[in-house]
Structure formats: C-alpha cells, structure tokens
C-alpha cells in the first residue's frame, strides 16, 4: 500500500516506522530537514522536504498513487487543508488527520465527502485523556479498554501478593470470583505476554487481562477486593494532576464533571492563568512539580490519585516516584518515549499512558487490510485484539469452542450477540452474525487473519 505521512514529529515518526516495517511504501513530508534526516536514517521510507499543504510537495511525494494519507503535523489547520488538497487534486482514497482542538471535533457535520474530506480524526491527547479517565474509574485495574460500545471490557490487573487470586489455576477462577463470568485472555509472567491455557497458574506479581461484560465490571472489582478500590467513589477522591497541557486540561475537565476535587500543578505562568480561567473548580497551582515544599504545601500525603501528565517524560517519571515515596495509592504516568515504557515496571510504576501508542493503534486499526474495527494492543503491544463478524458461511459456526481449532496463541474472549454479551466457556458456540472478540499474539496475526478470511469476513 502507498502511504503518505505529513509531519515527522513524534506521532508521524512512530506511524511511519510501524507501517514501513509491515512492508508498505511510505513517503514522509516535513519542512524540517533535521527531523526528516532522523526518519531517513531510521527506516526505509521516502522523505520529501516541503510544506504539507503545497500541491507540489504532495505531487513530489507521489500523491497520485497514494491510497492513504495521514496528516500528523502539529497544526490542526494544516492537517485539514492538506486533506482537502489531497482530496481535490489527487483523489487520495483514505485521509486521516490529527486534530487536537476539541472545538472542531465536537462538530461532526464539518467532516464528510462534501465538507472537509477527512475519514478519521485522530487526537492523541484526547485519546490519552479518555483512557486516563476510564482508568480513574476502575482504580484497581491498571488498564481498561472498551469494545462494542462498552458492552465488553478488557481489564488489565496485577495479581497482588496477598490477594486470594495468587496461586490458583485459571480453571478455578470462576469459583473464586463467585460465579462471575470472566475470561482471562492474556497473561504476563516475567515480562512475557501470552494467551493463557486453562491450566495456567496465576502467581503474585503476574499481570492478566480479563474479558468481562460491561455491566459486571463493578461486581468484578468488588470481588477482587483491592484495598484502594474499597470505600472512595470518584467524587470523594483527591486528585493531583501535574502538567496542564492538552492532556492535563482535558482530564481535569472530565474529573470536574465526576465531582472529584482536583489540584493541578503547572509550571508555565501564562498557561496557569489560562487554566485558572477555563477550569471551574480545579485549584490551579503555579510551580514546579518536583518542588518538595510545594508538594507538601498541597498535602501530597493525603492525595488518592497522582496523575503525571506533562509533556516531559522525565518530569513525569520523577514526579511519580516522589508520589510513590509519599505512598500515594494510585499513580498514572504519561510516557511518550518507548525506552522509558520498558523501565516503568522496574521502578514500580505500573500504570503508564502513552499518547503515541494510543494514536498509532487508532491509525493502524484503519490501515489493516479489510476493515476491522476495535483493534488495539494489550500489554506491551505483543497481543492484539480484533473484532470480526461471523458470516453464515463461516466454518467456525456451531462448534463448541473447546473443539474449535484456533491457531496457537489465539483465543475468543467474548461473543456479542445483538445486545447481549456472552463471556464464553468450552460449550459456547458462535452463531451467524455474532461479533467475535479475538485476542491473538502479533506474530500469529497473519495466520489468524488468513484462517478467518475463509469463514469470518472482516468488514
């Protein structure tokens, strides 16, 4: 596939790398020679120095033959205009644009074939903020992802050393969980993610992902009985946000709506003024998040949630470590650079959010061959989640799942039938028109896709 990427910033770079490594023909346009050089040095793509909106640059990058355009420059307006130019002059089939300003996103009428021709709007900051707020509501989980419009959730959690989950096999899990229907779709031990078998034993310190029906999430969390999820509702918690950038602002705004009491530390005085004006009940504090006196002034020891959301990875990590020292129960760290993501566990920081990863998976979801929706990655990115519809011709219909031959490292985590959600056991069967949530390892992805091409068609 011929792909055109505009902007070689953090997001553009990462997407280019992913797409190029999957064997696509990628061209990258940027007006900064140094950044382009970095791209050219790292991966096998074509680079063009020029302006993303100029027809000449686009023509030079081969826009006539491009099937996909991803506008990921830092300016919303540039991205929108570039999509328009690509549409009007070059008839590029699919156009995606990064748009951060929520004021634009809130007006869907703006976008369409005859309006601004953008097929997918990507907003890394909004995506990150959304996932932070989602996790805020399920504190004992380290990750929470929604599928099928919230009907199914995949909850990621650690097995606590003293909890009653440590030491049991997966086949015994439903007894411990009081008969609640869950399905463990991913398991991590010694930093190795895989799809578990029924006989897999959970050990303290392992991480798992559980598929659970949306309406059972509350009960599940109750059963898990984590210390910090007992007692305090969203409205009673004290949250300290560090960094009032785009992500911090959106999160503060959302938490205000939940009735949480929020404090926000921002080091740029102008931005702090802006935040104080635009946020309603949040206490905006101007200062350095790594200043011990400031943190104690704002009584960090009584904080329930510490969210480090600045643009600077190092500040976020150090801030989170300081919060950990003050025994803040729930810490979320925003990390952009891949090299840090791997370190986080070692430092004891469990919950990380990466706008770059979120964005990349949002884009890749649309790039995959066919049109699959609800594709995302679990854990460190080795496991992928796909949602697909079972057609009448499918070969997997009416066979109990225990007898169904799926590739190794692939599992059906949930079946969505109309408005119902079935968390499967060995006897469950897939019926025509069901939507199936599949979890598979990245390496077996092709194999799974091939297998399902016959009977299961991605639409």
């Amino acid at each position: 596939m011929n792909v055109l990427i505009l902007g070689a910033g953090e997001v553009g770079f990462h997407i280019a790398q992913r797409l190029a490594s999957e064997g696509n023909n990628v061209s990258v346009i940027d007006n900064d020679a140094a950044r382009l050089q970095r791209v050219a040095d790292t991966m096998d793509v074509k680079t063009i120095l020029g302006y993303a909106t100029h027809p000449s640059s686009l023509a030079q990058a081969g826009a006539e033959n491009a099937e996909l355009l991803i506008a990921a420059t830092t300016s919303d307006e540039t991205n929108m205009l570039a999509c328009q130019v690509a549409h009007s002059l070059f008839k590029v089939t699919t156009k995606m644009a990064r748009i951060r300003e929520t004021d634009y996103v809130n007006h869907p009428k703006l976008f369409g074939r005859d309006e601004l021709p953008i097929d997918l709007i990507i907003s890394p900051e909004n995506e990150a903020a959304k996932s932070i707020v989602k996790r805020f509501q399920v504190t004992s989980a380290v990750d929470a992802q929604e599928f099928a419009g919230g009907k199914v959730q995949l909850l990621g959690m650690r097995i606590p050393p003293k909890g009653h989950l440590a030491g049991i096999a997966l086949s015994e899990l439903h007894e411990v969980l009081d008969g609640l229907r869950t399905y463990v779709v991913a398991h991590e031990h010694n930093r190795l993610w895989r799809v578990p078998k029924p006989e897999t034993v959970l050990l303290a310190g392992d991480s798992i992902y559980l598929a659970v029906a949306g309406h059972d999430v509350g009960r599940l969390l109750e059963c898990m009985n984590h210390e910090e999820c007992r007692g305090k509702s969203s409205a009673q918690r004290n949250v300290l946000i560090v960094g009032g950038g785009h992500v911090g602002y959106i999160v503060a705004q959302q938490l205000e709506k939940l009735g949480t009491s929020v404090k926000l530390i921002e080091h740029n005085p102008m931005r702090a003024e802006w935040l104080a004006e635009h946020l309603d009940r949040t206490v905006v504090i101007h200062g350095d998040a790594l200043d011990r006196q400031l943190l104690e002034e704002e009584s960090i020891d009584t904080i329930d949630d510490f969210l480090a959301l600045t643009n600077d990875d190092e500040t976020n990590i150090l801030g989170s470590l300081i919060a950990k020292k003050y025994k803040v129960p729930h810490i979320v760290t925003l990390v952009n650079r891949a090299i840090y993501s791997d370190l986080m566990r070692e430092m004891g920081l469990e919950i990380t959010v990466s706008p770059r990863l979120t964005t990349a998976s949002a884009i890749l979801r649309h790039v995959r061959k066919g049109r699959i929706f609800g594709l995302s990655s679990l854990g460190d990115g080795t496991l992928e989640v796909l949602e697909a519809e079972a057609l009448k011709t499918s070969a997997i219909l009416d066979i109990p799942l225990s007898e169904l031959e799926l590739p190794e490292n692939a599992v059906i985590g949930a079946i969505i039938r109309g408005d119902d959600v079935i968390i499967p056991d060995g006897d469950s069967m897939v019926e025509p028109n069901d939507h199936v949530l599949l979890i598979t390892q990245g390496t077996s992805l092709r194999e799974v896709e091939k297998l399902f091409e016959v009977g299961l068609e991605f639409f």
Partner: protein
Amino acid sequence: MHIKGVIWTLGVLIVLFALGMLLPALVSLYFSSGHADHFFIASVLTASLGLIMMKWGGGSPKRLSHKDGFLIVALAWVVLSLLGAIPFWTTGVCVSIVDGLFESTSGLTTTGATILTGLDNLPPSILFWRSMQEWLGGMGIIVLAVAVMPLLGVGGMQLFRAETPGPVKDKLTARVTETAKALWYIYLAMTMLAGIALWLAGMSAFDAINHAMTTVAIGGFSTHDASMGYYDSMWIRGLTVIFMLLAGINFTLHFAAMRRGFSIKSYSHDDEFRTYIKWISVLILLIGSLTLLTGSGTWDEIIFNTVAIATTTGFAVSDYALWPPGTTMLLFAAMFVGACAGSTGGGMKVVRVLLLFRQGMREIRRLIHPHGVIHVKINEQSIGGPVVQALWGFFVLYMVCYGIVAILLSFTGVDMLTSLTAAAACITNTGPGFGTVGPASTYASLPDAAKAVLMFGMVLGRLEIFTFFVLLVPEFWRK
C-alpha cells in the same frame, strides 16, 4: 475636550426633555384640572434654552472623547433636575425653590423621596409629571437620546459608557444606537405590560399608568399618600412585586432571553441573577420570620416591603419602621446591595457585591494554596485584575461618600438615625429611610441645607460615583 460639542449635545437632551413636559400639559387638558398653561410655559422656557445651546454649539460634534461623555452625562443630570423643577414652581405646588428642586432630583434619579403630602388631592398633571420624571430617569434619558439620535454617532458610545450602571459594560448589538433602542423597547414594553396588568387588577387607568412608570423605573413615587398601602388588593400588590423584581434584573438578560424566545435558561445561567433571587429570598425569609414571631406584620406586607426596598424602589404597603430592629437593619443593608447592574435600580448592584465577596474568598483560598492561581469569576469568565481593583475603588468611594453625606446631614441638625438612613436611602436611590423620613412620613420636615445635601447624594448615587468624581480631578480639565 470639545466644549461646543458638549453644549450642543446637552441642548439636544434639553429639547427632548422639553418635549416630555408637553405630556403632563395634555394630561391636565384631559382632566381639565388647570395647570396646562404652566406646563406649556415650562416647556417653552426649557425648549428655548435647549435651542439656544444647540445654536451656540453649532451643530453635531464630529467626535466626542470619553471625557466629553463624562461631562455631558454629569451635567445632564444636574441641568435636567434643575429644569424639571420648573413645573413644580410655576404651578405653586412647591413653594420654596429647594423643595421643587428636591422633588425634581428625587424623581429623575428614581429615588422616590418626596417632600409632598396630600398627594391624593394634587392635580393629575403634577402627579403625572412626577411619575414621568422617574420614568425618564429610569432607563436614562441619555440612553434614549442615543437611541433616537443616530447623529450622535461615535460619541454615542462614550455617553452610553458613562451613563449605564454596572462594572462590566455589554454592548448588546454591533451598533450602540441599536443597543440603546433595544434597551428602550424592552423598557417601554415592560412599562406597557405593567400598566395593562395593574389596570386589569383594578387600578384606575390614570393610577395604573403612573404606577407602571414608577415601578418599572424602580422609582417609588405614588399617587397616594399611603403609597401602595392605598390598594388593599392582593392582585395589585402581587403584580407590583413581580414588576419590581423584573425591572431589577439586568436588561441585557431580558434582551438575551427575548432573542431566545423568553427561555428561563438564559436567566438561570447568570450568576448575578441567581444571587439576586437568592439574596431577596433569604431577606424575605429572615425578615418574615422575625416579623411574624413578634406578630407585627403579615406575609404579603413582608414580601412587598422587602422587595420594594431590596430593589431600591421604595414603595410601601405598611410602616415597616415599626417592625423589630433586626428587620429594619436588614432592610437598611438591602438598600446598599441594591438591584442588578444594567437594571433601572440603584444601590451598589448585586454583581459588585458578589464580585467583592468572591474576591474576599479568593484571598482566603490564597492562604490555603500559597502558589495557587485563583481567578475571580463570574459566569465562568475570569474578571481581570483592573476590574477587581476598580470594584474596590468603587466600594471605598461609595462608602466614603455615604459617610460624608450622612455627616453633613447631621451638621444641619438632623438626628443620627435619620441622618444615617436618609443618606443611605438617597445615595442608593431607594427613597424612604427611617426616623423622621420613614415610610409613613416625608422629607418635608428636613431643613433646606439637609435637602441640598441629599440632592447631591442622589445624583452621586445615580451616576455611580465615578462619573461624577472624575469631574473633580484637576487632570480632567487639563488640556
């Protein structure tokens, strides 16, 4: 400064005012109660003064500076108060010069303090003139001038700024003449509605017109000595309460609501409106429970009198000076808070008090969060430092002026309670005070010097201090 332009503009205002004087003449012809000639003479005198000033000013000024705006507005209130007194003198209703001036100033500034007794026996033309002066003063004859005189052009904005009360000036429409027109249409419509409603509720047509004008202007003149107590009808009292409350709301809000088909939402979203309603409700509850406990009043009297004072109208249905001391103190405080900014009411305005309160809270929060960035907000918008500083300046000057007026009053030999309350009633444009100027009596018994001081207070209050004080600063007059 463009002295000629200022004089010309004043001339226009005076001619407009002179035209207004013809209406009472028509009223007196209709009732054949005499005095028509007196009003004609007053009108001709006023009009010729205005025409001379226009002639001397030599045509519409090309541009007016903001200084000219202040000067015109401040002078207009003084000159029009003076000219408005002419009918009181020519008809012989007020024997002394000071009394006539007092009645005229009190009317035009919508204060509603009176020195006249035996209102029920006064000729209708005089009563009508009193009500009409309040009505002209309510929305501000200057706003009217801006509305009907597009030739004022750019200078109109300067006048408008100097004239309309409140800390934040909103332009409702792109052009200031359109804004002024919109305000007057709302004002006119509300007055007509009030008139019809009161008439249907059982007032005579003449009384309904008069009371509609003085209610919507938040003035408080009545055509009866017993004020609203004359009418023992729940309907009339209830309607008057509603129209006082409506007129006490920022007219900008009425305008916004009208555009959206009178949606309640556009009112309930406004911080000032919500505070206004809460404040008046709390007052009614507190005053009500205190009064009912001692058995000195009934609920309808309590609601009516409280709303009349809290909106700074100054009507009364009973002598609330006889209520327990706690309630009179609350009513005294209510005068200072006053109605909403941009309404026809007086006082310091709810929004100012609200902002000062929030500013105070901000200082307390700053002690808890020494590095906090905390803004004073209204309607989810930050109010900048300069506005808050101006508010403090206003508050201090207002209180100092009040103190000076009260002290000057006591110098003229007025007792302390009367001095303190009369000064408040006049500077907040409410009308009745306590002591010898209570709701059951008038200002007639005060010495002439005291009346002069109070007139000064009324104009000061109507111009919201700053517009007047700016003229006293030497820098204003420097070239």
